[in-house]
């Protein structure tokens, strides 16, 4: 399923809404989650899962081709943990 198919399903469920409003609704949900993580916040959606930010320490990496060492700075990466309800549903519980 891609974004446009998700929009279509919600539009089908809500024939009283304009398609472009449904698009804005879907975009708002994802935009808010991304903005929260960009601020360093978590987004916790019970039953679905939780988005958080993890810190990766600075390290000395290596170019696998040349073997030259490169300094990799500390960075923050997005992380998702599946919620209990969804995890159980995936396994038919």
């Amino acid at each position: 399923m891609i974004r446009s198919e998700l929009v279509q399903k919600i539009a089908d469920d809500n024939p009283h809404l304009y398609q472009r409003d449904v698009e804005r609704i879907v975009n708002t949900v994802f935009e808010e989650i991304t903005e929260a993580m960009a601020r360093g916040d978590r987004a916790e959606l019970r039953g679905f899962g939780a988005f958080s930010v993890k810190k990766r320490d600075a390290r000395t990496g290596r170019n696998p081709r040349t073997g030259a060492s490169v300094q990799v700075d500390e960075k923050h990466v997005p992380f998702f943990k599946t919620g209990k309800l969804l995890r159980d549903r995936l396994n038919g519980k």
Partner: protein
Amino acid sequence: MSEKTLTRMDLSEAVFREVGLSRNESAQLVESVLGHMSDALVRGESVKISSFGTFSVRSKAARVGRNPKTGQEVPILPRRVLTFRPSHLMKDRVADGNKA
């Protein structure tokens, strides 16, 4: 880091502000977004949201696990797990936003 937590309530508030539907309907629509995504994943489909990321379902084989406290062997049954791969855009925004 401030470490606040965004919840469903914040999402419906944002939808309410952005689209101007009632608070109640905004909350239902947020639920519907998450519900349709979950249903697709339970059917075994991946959910690909451009500029956000991809959720995919992977099947894991059975293996023998061990209770780390007692050392007792326990069978771990085959199961399906969900993985999320953030898009490059999201990775960049999260990295830039959290720079020291």
